[in-house]
Structures are given as C-alpha cells and as structure tokens.
C-alpha cells in the first residue's frame, strides 16, 4: 500500500503515517457486526443471570437484615413488607445483652480456631500419606475415608455419646485409644457425674486429632487430590538433598499448599462455628459451663415478656424475626472473615487441579 509511510523518528521509535478510515466507518465496522451483536447479547444474558441468582442467594439475608430493625408495630402494620416504618435496634440489643453473645463469641471463636487448626493439620498429614506413598492398604485406608464421608453423623450420635461417656464399654484392653482415654477419665474423676468426657470439650479434640471430625473425610479427599498434583520431583530433589519425609512435608509441601490449606481451614472453621451437632451431644448438660453460638438462637426473656399480650400470629412472626436477627449475629463474624479470605478459597481450589 502506497499510503503507508514509515519514517524513523529516533533510534528505537518509528512513526507510521497512513490514511485511516473515517471514524464513522470504523465505528460501523466495530458495532454493526454480527460478532459484536452476539457478544452484547451474551454479556447481557450472562449479567442478568448472574445478578438474578445473586439476588436469589442474597434475598434471605437481605430480608433478615431488613426485618431485624423492625419493631412490633411494623409486624402489626399490614402495609409493611420489607422496609420498616419505625426502625429500632431493640432486637440486636436484647439478643446481645440477654443471650450472652460476648461469651458465646469468645468460646466459639477459641474452640473453632483450635479445632480447625488441628483438623487442617491432621487432614493434611493423612492426605499426604495417602497421595504420595504407595503401601499395602493405601486403598483400604482411602475407602475408610470415603466411608466416614458417607455415613451421616446422626447415625453415630448415640454411640458417640456412649463412647465418650463411659469408655469401658469398648474393650479397654484391646483398644489403644480407650486404653489412653480410660485412665484419663479416672484421673479427672469424670465418672463421678455420670457424664464422663461427654460433658467436656475433650471429645471434639479427640475426634479432630484422629481425623474424624465433621466432614473431615471431605478435607482429606480434597487435600489428597491436591497433593497428587504436586510434582514428585520436588520430594525427590529434597530427598537427594538429605531431607527426611517429615521435614520435606513441613518445609516444602506445606508452604506450597497454603492456599488449599486456607480453604480447608475456612471450611473447618465455619462448620465448627455453626455446629449444632457435636455441641449438642457433648455439651448438652443443662448447666454446662460452655456457652456456644447455638445458645444465642433463642428468644430473649424480655422479648418473650413483651409478646405475652400479643396475638399468636404476631408473636410468632416477631419471634421469627428475632431468630433471624440472632442468625445474623451468628453469621456476622463469618461473613467478615469470608470477605477477607474468599479470594483464597477460589485460588486454593483452582490450584488444586482435582482430577477424579
């Protein structure tokens, strides 16, 4: 094309003069093509879909938040559906002050943090053993991992309680774990009240240490798939450089799998945070010393007193709102943590390269 003129401007720059098509033409080509139309339609479709589903997911939470600032007069008013006419913070105030929120927050936080840390570490160890070492029985151990994933926890509710209540039932002499736990129970004098370990936090930690906590099978499975994707050459070179397997694990494997470990940790932490299964088995005694998040989900006394004079419909609607407020308060710390860590979740799983 003779219209293009190239001239050297400096040593590294050249300048090209050419006759551009007029702006109108260029815009026409860009915006009136079928490709552009297709793209626009696709983007609109995708955005509408995403926003719609986002709305479906968020709607219950939005509804809860909006009704958490309603007062009783809003419940009586038929014209109020979502937006309150008399906003108050009564519900928050009563739940916070009368349901021991601070104490529940502290205990739940400490317990969830420690349990989640233990579970993450133990699951990583077991998963690493399953993923990277060939030994007889590897597949049997893995089958048991899947089994623990498949048996619903409710199935073992009674026997779990019985196990930690009185360990003698399970053949102390032959079973290494009850062999350790039984003297401990005697030592603490825990049989005296008839609850054994069942009224302490010990069962939670024992289950976590042995990789049997809530959904630990899933964690082991996820981590195993992740470790399978880690190239063997890393360990081989570490071995040649004289590192033991444990040292390789802690100083090479753990650092490179931080995103995945954070994912598992978040799951473990939040599932322990909202747990109402283990805390209801093990700490079910009425005057138990521990207050957990699940104890917050109750109608505070002063609200119950307030509702005595109201009709059945109104009082049940209002106490549902109070429960909703309680669940906001339970979820709030999790949401805050999630906002900061969610990028890591996706990152961790994306890097895992889970292959069936």
């Amino acid at each position, binding site marked *: 094309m003779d219209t293009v003129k190239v001239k050297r401007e400096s040593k590294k720059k050249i300048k090209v003069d050419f006759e551009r098509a007029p702006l109108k033409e260029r815009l026409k080509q860009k915006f009136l093509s079928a490709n552009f139309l297709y793209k626009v339609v696709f983007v609109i479709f995708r955005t509408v879909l995403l926003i719609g589903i986002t709305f479906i997911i968020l709607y*219950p939470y939005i509804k809860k938040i909006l009704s958490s600032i309603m007062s009783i007069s809003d419940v009586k008013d038929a014209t109020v559906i979502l937006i309150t006419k008399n906003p108050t913070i009564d519900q928050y105030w009563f739940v916070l002050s009368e349901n021991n929120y601070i104490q529940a927050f502290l205990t739940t936080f400490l317990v969830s943090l420690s349990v989640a840390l233990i579970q993450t570490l133990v699951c990583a*160890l077991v998963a690493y053993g399953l993923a990277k070492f060939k030994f007889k029985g590897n597949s049997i151990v893995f089958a048991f991992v899947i089994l*623990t994933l498949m048996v619903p*926890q409710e199935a073992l509710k009674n026997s779990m309680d019985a196990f930690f209540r009185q360990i*003698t039932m399970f053949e102390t002499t032959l079973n290494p774990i009850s062999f350790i736990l039984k003297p401990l129970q005697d030592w603490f004098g825990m049989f005296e009240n008839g609850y054994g370990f069942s009224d302490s936090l010990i069962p939670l930690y024992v289950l976590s240490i*042995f990789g049997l906590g809530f959904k630990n099978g899933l964690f082991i499975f996820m981590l195993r798939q992740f470790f399978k994707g880690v190239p063997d050459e890393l360990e081989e070179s570490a071995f040649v450089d004289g590192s*033991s397997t444990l040292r390789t694990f802690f100083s090479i494997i753990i650092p490179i799998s931080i995103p995945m470990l954070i994912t598992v940790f978040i799951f473990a932490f939040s599932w322990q945070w909202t747990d109402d299964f283990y805390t209801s088995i093990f700490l079910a005694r009425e005057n138990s010393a521990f207050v957990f998040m699940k104890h917050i989900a109750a109608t505070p006394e002063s609200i119950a007193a307030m509702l005595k004079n109201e009709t059945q419909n109104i009082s049940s609607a209002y106490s549902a709102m109070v429960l909703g407020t309680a669940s906001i308060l339970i979820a709030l710390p999790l949401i805050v943590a999630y906002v900061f860590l969610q990028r890591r979740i996706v990152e961790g799983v994306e890097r895992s390269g889970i292959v069936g």
Partner: protein
Amino acid sequence: MKNANETQNKVTLGSSTTGASTQKVYLATPKKVTKPVAKQPQEPLEEAPVVAEQVKTKETAEGPAYTPYVSKKKGLSLTGKKALSGWLFCMPFVLGIIGIYLPMVIKSIEVSFRGSKGNYDYLSFDAYKLVFFDDGRFTTTVLDAMGDLVLQIPAIVIFSLFMAIILNQKMTGRTFFRAVFFLPVILSTGIIDAIDAQIDAGSMEESGAIDDNTGASDGGLISSLDVEMLLSNVNLKIGEFSLVEVVTSLINNIFKIVSRSGVQMLIFLSGLQSISPSIYESCQMEGATAWETFWKITLPMISPMILVNAIYTVVDLFTAADNRVMQGLGGYGGLFGSANPGNFSAGIWVYILLVLVVIVVVALLMKTVVFYQRRD
C-alpha cells in the same frame, strides 16, 4: 446401669470387635518401629547422596529393628521405607478408625439387633421387621425421598457445571459473583440452617391456610399456574410426573439447589482450570465454535469431575439433615411411632446401605461416559 450390663454381656458380639482389634495390632506394629526413623532427620542425610552405596551402612545401623519389612538385601529398601512413611502419615486416621470409628459403628449396629425391650442377651430382628414390614412408612418415605433426589441430583450437577463455566470467564465483578456463589457453603450449615428451617416452618403455619385453594405455594418464585400457561401446548406426562410439576418444583427449589451446589462449583472450577489452554487455542485455530468446543473439549475433559460431583451430590443430599428420611429418623420417633434407639439404628443403617447401592449405580452409569486423559 445400662453400661455395666453391657460390659458383661458383650461376649455375644465380641467376635466381630476382637477381629477388628487384632487387625489393628498388626497395623500398629510398623508404626512403633518407624518412630525412631522419623525422629532422626540426620539419618537420611547420611545415606542420601548415593543410595546404592549407602545400603550397607544402613544395614549395620538399623539391624534387626526392621524385621517386618526386611527384604532380601537385609536392609529396608526405598520402597519399604516409603511404605513406612506412608503408614506414619496415615497413622492418626488409621488409629482413629480402629479405635473410635469402627467401635462406634459396631455399637450402633449392635443396638439395632437388641429388640424393643433393649434385651442384650439375644439377637432380635424386631427393629428390622418394623423397618420393612410394619406399615410401610419407612419404605414409602425412602422411595419418596429418592424420587425427589432423582430430579435434584442432575439439576445440581448441571447447574453447578453451568455456573462454573460462567464464573470461569473473564468479566468485571467476577470476584464479587464468586464470593456470593460460595457464600452458602459457609453460611447454610448447622445452626443457621436450623434457624432458617424454624423460621420457614413458622411462616408456613401462618400463611398456609390462605393460599391453599389457589394451588400457589406462598413464597415460591412461581406457581404451577404460570408454568401451565407457558407450557400449555406441551403437556408431557410420564406416569405421575408431569412436566409442569417438575419445572415448578425445580424453580421453587432454586435456593436449595443454588445453596447446595457450592462445593460442586468449586470442584468444577478447579477442573476447568486444569484444562490446558493450548487445547482451546488449537481448537480456535481449526475454526471450532464455542458450542463445539464445549461439547468436544470441555465436557470430555471435565467428565471425571462430573463423576466426582455426582457422587458427592448423592452423599450430600442423602445425608442432609433436611432430607425427609433423616427428618423422620431424627428423634427416634417419626417414622416408627415408638421412640427406640434400636429402630433408629436399624432404619439408618438400612438407609445407608441403600445410599451405597445408589452410589454404586450412579458410579457405574457414569463410568461408561467418563473420559480419562492419559497422563504418561
């Protein structure tokens, strides 16, 4: 008082438990032996550089301590050593299974054979008779629940695959959408779920009477009437299922489907990320459209993940606390009328066996379609 009784009469079922324990003794031995190895990080240091030459020194150093794994070279081979480390890493879980999990499972199964009087002396099949024959409540509930799940499992798997593909594309606000989509994994569990169920039950009590005759379910996104209008020409019916009902129930359960597909979405996303971009590139060069690329590349490459997700969804839905069977079994009463731990155990173990059968069937069905990329 119960417990004292139990210890004395344990003999009847002792055989099975001791079997497990003897196995454990066998499994435990290598671990005790390995412990010193693990605690001496310097030792492999010495022998590391040239493994073949170092075998002799190791022989003298370790000697007879390794009897269970002695090979013909009279030292621990590299494979043997790796096996030991493998056992060492898995030891917490293996111990937990043998020491805690299996005893609990056995106890739970044992309870189901005790009969209604809680008699420890003899085997009774009362609970199982109740489960299968009494008034059919258990069987009908399980069949109903399975009917529900037949619809929901494909819905969840397809939905999560679809959303994973969309969330995998580059676009503005992707981080936000991802965060929102995975929110239910964190939040729709445990107490928060239980509170939601409680609130739902309360609101249904209030409004249930009003909407009963219109056939519109309150709170649902659409009613069956809307769908009927839309699909008036296509009135497909297969047995009892009509297309209208299926569509309505799926759309009205959309929150449940969305909130149950978080983990599946994560798994699919990771699968999509692991497909090498060069395959897509070459596809584009050959002139394949996005549609063709999906069916010819993405779907086959992601099919192992579909298998994993299908099985995970089956397990997740069957063991969910809001599942009809689990609700009926909860609190021992429900399905059987009388509060008895034996009935509960019998019911739940029969149910678990059924779930296993379903999983095997799903896995076998999926195996025929799954494509594994060869990795050499």
